[in-house]
């Protein structure tokens, strides 16, 4: 079974989604358990793949036993093995977390929620693993369609927000498809490695440029880079808590990975940075994205909405880092995919706990939150420290790599934007700490003798994922050197 | 044979343009519906003619049948819509 692991990572969630739908007709409560088991299994197989990649080298798995350009291939290298593991772990944690929240928010739609949840993760896993440009489109659409359905489930304002997301998401996917079409008309192939070989043996024509441009615009729309970000805040704010916990860490990061993948395994360094020379424009865009995201986040009163704008800023980090064009910048961008995934997850989980207990996530309802929910706030603080970039959390290390990359490339604007963004994050989170710790509970007197009376924590199924994520943030931070030398550097070596 | 088929196909297409004028002008939706149905029928013929030109008629007949069936269903649905929604011009149907 070990050599089948790459396929099993994707096939297990797919089949379990079908079983969840069928069994959910009769036993709605079982679907939660099935989802957890599914992602536990997927995580194990993802770990097996990662181990094999580190020891043996990149894996290629062909479906239907057809050789690579004719059939569909899964190409697993160091970076995407790591990202797949991250996706599985995030899905596993959110699956545990969602138990109470879903019963409260969605009622009788539980099996459908879990079935869509599992299929969404299937799509994301497939996007990360696949080595076929068109297969990526199909999986992109699966993850997009499931996310539309999941986001709209909470009702109310979510409908119109999701409708906008549907329109923007379709434009993004169609642009990607158009780009693939231009590649196909130039090379006649769909396999990424094959396209890369054919492209580098020809001269790069104008149509290749257009193909690259459209693939990039498609992915930027999907990941909400600044001028194309308008769909994201509304869609994530009005969604059910568990949905936004799942989508916020994964959806945009996977799009960033697709961008990295396209840059590294379809086009090459020489073409992107020496022939096209767009890096200054795109780093400038990233700077604008970081600044705009930070400023817009400062204006928000609702915590969930504030975080969605921070995601927009973080996208700027990764896009900018990838387009700096040097090893440190690229390492920072790749490492930040992992770090930011867990960071965002941690913060969203904490906010979900608060919403579950307090009812909403506006700043004014944070008064006395530290006495009321101390464990949740510990998790929140670790996430916040990571977001600001305080060692030993992993947020510090990714920022470190990005800043040194910006210094090497002498992209001073990007460097300054990173520092400003850290400052803004610090202001944002210390504002919450100020309100939550130093301002008393709104209704009652601060009771120093019996602090436990006011304690009202979220259920254990919500706290355990939160604390695990917080632990992972520190753990990843401590093992940064290993992750970078064994997983990210081998990936970058082929590209630079 | 082939020039004749070409001619027939082009004739159908030009007829289609004539019918299409009705679809553009059509004061009521029912005019549009009818003219579009006529276009649909002509399309079936065109597909069969294309089959003859490719000299693989057996393959194209399947499409023509499927096309006709689905055209029928679309027409029935639209007719049903107007049965429930008794007005033909859009502005007077506001209250229903």
């Amino acid at each position, binding site marked *: 079974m070990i050599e089948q692991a790459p396929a099993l990572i994707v096939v297990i969630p797919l089949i379990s989604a079908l079983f969840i739908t069928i069994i959910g007709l009769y036993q709605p409560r079982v679907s939660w358990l099935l989802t957890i088991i599914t992602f536990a299994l997927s995580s194990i197989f993802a770990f097996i793949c990662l181990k094999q990649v580190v020891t043996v080298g990149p894996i290629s798995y062909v479906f239907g036993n057809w050789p690579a350009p004719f059939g569909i291939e899964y190409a697993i290298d160091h970076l995407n093995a790591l990202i797949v593991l991250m996706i599985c772990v995030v899905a596993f944690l959110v699956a545990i977390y969602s138990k109470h929240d879903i019963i409260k928010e969605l009622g009788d739609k539980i099996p459908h929620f879990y079935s869509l949840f599992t299929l969404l993760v299937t799509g994301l896993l497939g996007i990360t693993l696949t080595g076929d440009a068109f297969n990526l489109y199909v999986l992109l659409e699966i993850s997009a369609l499931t996310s*539309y*359905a999941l986001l709209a489930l909470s009702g109310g304002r979510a409908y119109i927000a999701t409708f906008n997301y549907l*329109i923007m998401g379709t434009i993004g996917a169609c642009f990607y498809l158009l780009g693939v079409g231009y590649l196909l*008309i130039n090379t006649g192939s769909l396999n990424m490695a094959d396209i890369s070989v054919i492209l580098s043996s020809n001269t790069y024509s104008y149509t290749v440029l257009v193909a690259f441009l459209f693939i990039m615009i498609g992915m930027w729309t999907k990941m909400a880079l600044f001028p194309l970000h308008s769909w994201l805040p509304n869609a994530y704010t009005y969604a059910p808590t568990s949905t936004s916990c799942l989508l916020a860490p994964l959806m945009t990061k996977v799009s960033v990975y697709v961008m990295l993948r396209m840059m590294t395994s379809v086009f090459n360094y020489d073409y992107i940075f020496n022939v096209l020379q767009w890096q200054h424009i795109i780093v400038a865009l990233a700077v604008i994205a970081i600044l705009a995201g930070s400023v817009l986040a400062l204006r928000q009163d609702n915590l969930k909405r504030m975080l969605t704008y921070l995601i927009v800023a973080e996208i700027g980090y990764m896009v900018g880092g990838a387009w700096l064009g040097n090893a440190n910048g690229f390492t920072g961008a790749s490492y930040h995919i992992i770090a930011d995934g867990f960071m965002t997850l941690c913060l969203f989980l904490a906010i979900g706990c608060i919403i579950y207990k307090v009812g909403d996530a506006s700043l004014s309802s944070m008064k006395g939150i530290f006495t009321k929910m101390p464990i949740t706030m510990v998790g929140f603080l670790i996430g916040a420290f990571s977001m600001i970039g305080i060692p030993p959390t992993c947020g510090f290390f990714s920022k470190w790599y990005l800043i040194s990359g910006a210094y090497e490339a002498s992209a001073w604007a990007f460097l300054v934007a990173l520092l400003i963004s850290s400052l803004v994050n610090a202001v944002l989170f210390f504002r919450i700490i100020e309100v939550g710790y130093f301002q008393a509970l709104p209704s009652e007197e601060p009771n120093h003798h019996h602090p436990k009376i006011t304690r009202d924590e979220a259920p254990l199924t919500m706290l355990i994922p939160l604390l695990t994520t917080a632990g992972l943030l520190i753990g990843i931070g401590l093992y940064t050197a290993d992750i970078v030398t064994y997983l990210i550097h081998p990936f970058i070596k082929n590209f630079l | 044979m082939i020039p004749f088929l070409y001619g027939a196909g082009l004739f159908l297409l030009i007829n289609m343009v004539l019918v299409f004028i009705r679809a553009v002008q059509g004061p009521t939706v029912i005019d549009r519906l009818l003219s579009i149905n006529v276009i649909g029928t002509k399309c079936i013929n065109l597909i069969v003619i294309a089959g003859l030109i490719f000299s693989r008629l057996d393959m194209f007949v399947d499409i023509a049948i499927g096309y006709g069936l689905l055209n029928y269903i679309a027409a029935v649905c639209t007719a049903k819509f107007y049965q429930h929604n008794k007005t033909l011009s859009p502005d007077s149907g506001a209250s229903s």
Partner: protein
Amino acid sequence: MEFIINYYNYIIVVIIMMLGLWGMLALSNLVKKLISMAIFQTGIILFYISMGAKKGASIPIIKQAYDEHHHPIHQTINNMDYANPLTQILMLTAIVVGVATLGLGLALTQRVYSEHKSLHEDEILETLS
């Protein structure tokens, strides 16, 4: 003239796609937005199909001769005789995906309508703010 005939399909592709894109971004009625989305997608499908067309080629179903035991007789098959199957398969997928997206969009439209009593985006945004 020669140029127009040789590239007619691609020119139409660009016009259709841009029409659809404009409709998606600028039109305000939700159903029309979805129709524009479908038009945009057909533009891309036309692009793929046009790239797979071959002059003088037949449809991609191979004319197979069989012997009396219904075993196919081996024959050499020339690539030039049959239209490109690959682009057609990709577009089969794209059509199905397009209808799935359309269906989901229509379901959302119905929900938006029952929530805000309007299909007009600007009107809805005005009532929200």
